[in-house]
């Protein structure tokens, strides 16, 4: 034993560091739970916001998968001179001849025709409903479904019968489709034979009443020009088809034709919610920050209260680094506990919300990983100053306080 050699170093095993950090929390469970709760609220808010927005997006995606994204609509745009353009009556058949097209249908708005519950209603009270002639294959093309009654087949299309869009039925106050319901349409009585479900890919049909193509021409002077052509093609060929549609639908004036993809509108609507999500996420971040301040406060008090413990540990051979690690570990554990609770709470909130809306439950893994990383970071930042203070405390001062 000589004065130049040094004793073997102090060593605190990693497992013991965790154990020591945890024992600090166990000594004051209520305080630990309350400060962890602050973190939990922040994490729960953020997880729930992201989870709910992901579930909502998942719902739209589900809907798109179900409805397909290969539907294009063709409408007459504006003439160069500013007037309303029209599509030629044979444009539907011309679109059908494009190779990859699998289904085509169309509606034609019957100008000058309005629909009323009966003939006593003043003509200006149209309720915003439009009267459209529909081809029999419309329902299949737009993936529409009948809520009650039946769809216009070739036979019914010859007679004054009508199928109501979902909103139109509500506004007209008609829910009977057994043939007893009638509407006053363009100066004639039309019998209601069916009511449609809402149509996500063609929302304009919800406020329409649909009549057969032939009867529209015979009774109401419909000119046969389609106002919206619905077209489906192979998924891979949608862009190619889109490119040739204007010239196909109206060879004389392709520049007057406008083509749109309704599924894009649905997706865009989902994306519009992102702004709100970002705002709510920021609010959750503020809650997390407040929770972090709570943890820092708890740790500062813990260091002040536990001076004699710090002194004892230094006397038992703890280095400054060991003391710092103990309190930093305690802070990270505290925040981590809150993070786990918060993630679970956020998951439950998301599941409950999705349940009430009939949405699929979606909580991406990166959200949970992000929440875990956030709590570790918050715990480390909150504990850094108190831990450094504990480590700097001279052992004699720490022992002299009692």
């Amino acid at each position, binding site marked *: 034993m000589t004065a130049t050699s040094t*004793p073997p170093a102090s060593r605190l095993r990693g497992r013991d560091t965790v*154990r020591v950090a945890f024992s600090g929390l166990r000594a004051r469970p209520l305080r630990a739970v309350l400060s962890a709760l602050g973190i939990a609220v922040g994490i729960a808010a953020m997880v729930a916001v992201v989870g709910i927005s992901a579930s909502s997006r998942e719902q739209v995606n589900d809907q798109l998968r179900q409805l397909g994204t290969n539907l294009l609509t063709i409408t007459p745009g504006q003439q160069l001179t500013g007037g309303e353009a029209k599509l030629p009556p044979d444009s539907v058949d011309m679109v059908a001849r494009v190779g990859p097209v699998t289904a085509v249908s169309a509606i034609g708005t019957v100008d000058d025709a309005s629909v009323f519950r009966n003939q006593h209603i003043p003509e200006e009270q149209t309720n915003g409903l439009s009267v459209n002639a529909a081809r029999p294959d419309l329902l299949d093309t737009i993936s529409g479904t009948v809520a009650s009654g039946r769809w216009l087949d070739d036979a019914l299309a010859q007679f004054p019968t009508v199928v109501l869009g979902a909103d139109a039925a509500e506004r007209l106050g008609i829910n009977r489709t057994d043939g007893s319901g009638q509407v006053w349409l363009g100066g004639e009585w039309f019998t209601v034979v069916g009511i449609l479900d809402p149509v996500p890919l063609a929302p304009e049909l919800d406020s329409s009443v649909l009549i057969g193509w032939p009867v529209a021409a015979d009774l109401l002077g419909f000119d046969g020009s389609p106002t919206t052509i619905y077209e489906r093609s192979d998924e891979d060929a949608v862009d190619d088809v889109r490119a040739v549609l204007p010239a196909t639908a109206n060879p004389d004036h392709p520049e007057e034709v406008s083509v749109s993809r309704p599924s894009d509108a649905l997706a865009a609507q989902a994306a519009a919610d992102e702004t709100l999500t970002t705002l709510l996420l920021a609010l959750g971040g503020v809650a997390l920050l407040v929770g972090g301040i709570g943890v820092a406060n708890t740790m500062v008090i813990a260091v002040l209260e536990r001076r004699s*413990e710090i002194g004892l540990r*230094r006397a038992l*051979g703890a*280095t400054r680094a060991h003391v710092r690690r103990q309190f930093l570990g305690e802070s990270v554990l505290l925040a981590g506990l809150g993070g786990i609770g918060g993630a679970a709470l956020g998951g439950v909130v998301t599941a409950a919300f999705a349940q009430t809306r009939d949405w699929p439950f979606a909580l991406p893994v990166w959200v949970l990983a992000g929440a875990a990383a956030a709590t570790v970071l918050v715990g480390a930042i909150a504990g850094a100053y108190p831990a450094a203070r504990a480590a700097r405390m001279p052992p004699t001062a720490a022992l002299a306080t009692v």
Partner: protein
Amino acid sequence: MSTRIQAAATAPVAVADTRDPVVLLRDVRRIYPGHPPVRALDGVDLQIDPGELVGIVGPSGSGKTTLLNVLGTLDRADAGVVRVDGYDVEELSDRQLSAMRAHRIGFVFQQFFLSPGVTALDNVADGLLYTGLAQRNRRARARRTLTRVGLADRTHHKPHQLSGGQRQRVAVARALVGQPALLLADEPTGALDSASGAAVLELLHELRDTGTTIVVITHDHGVAAELPRQVHILDGRIESDERTAER
């Protein structure tokens, strides 16, 4: 030199002449700045050989706690030579001093400083926490040490289930579990009734008989009179260094 020979004769386990002293202080000074500055240690010379049981006696404010802190490497002297267990404290870094305390020095405090809600066994095992031993080995050694201080039947009791005397015995076991070269006890009987205090002193005597070097700090002359060597300290200076015949 006659005291030296007497010391060797009364401490059969320690053969002072062939071993380095456990503690060697030469002209040690510790001055706390202030107006006026406090000379807590004012030129202290002290040598403690292996196997000795030494009482450091003095009234409060005499500098005995500062002396304990310097001996325990918790505090550094401002001047002079401090050599503990053969190491020159002045030359060691803070980390190395921590290592000294982890491996070579044990502390017993007046207030015990046991962790509440933790069994006697684990409190004692904590004496080895910073040596890097695995928990299993720490507990095995703690169990043996608890047996040594007569608490084999109290291993799973928590501090609040133990009497004051038993708690201090747990604290002694914690200081002892690492087999330190030097055991420092700061007023070990200060918080105990006389019967418990006598039992703890009896334990220290037994430990000393098995070769542990022990320094007891006390203001109680009755306690000091029980110890084979008494160093009286006043105003930071050693007033007297007496050895009494073994009981």
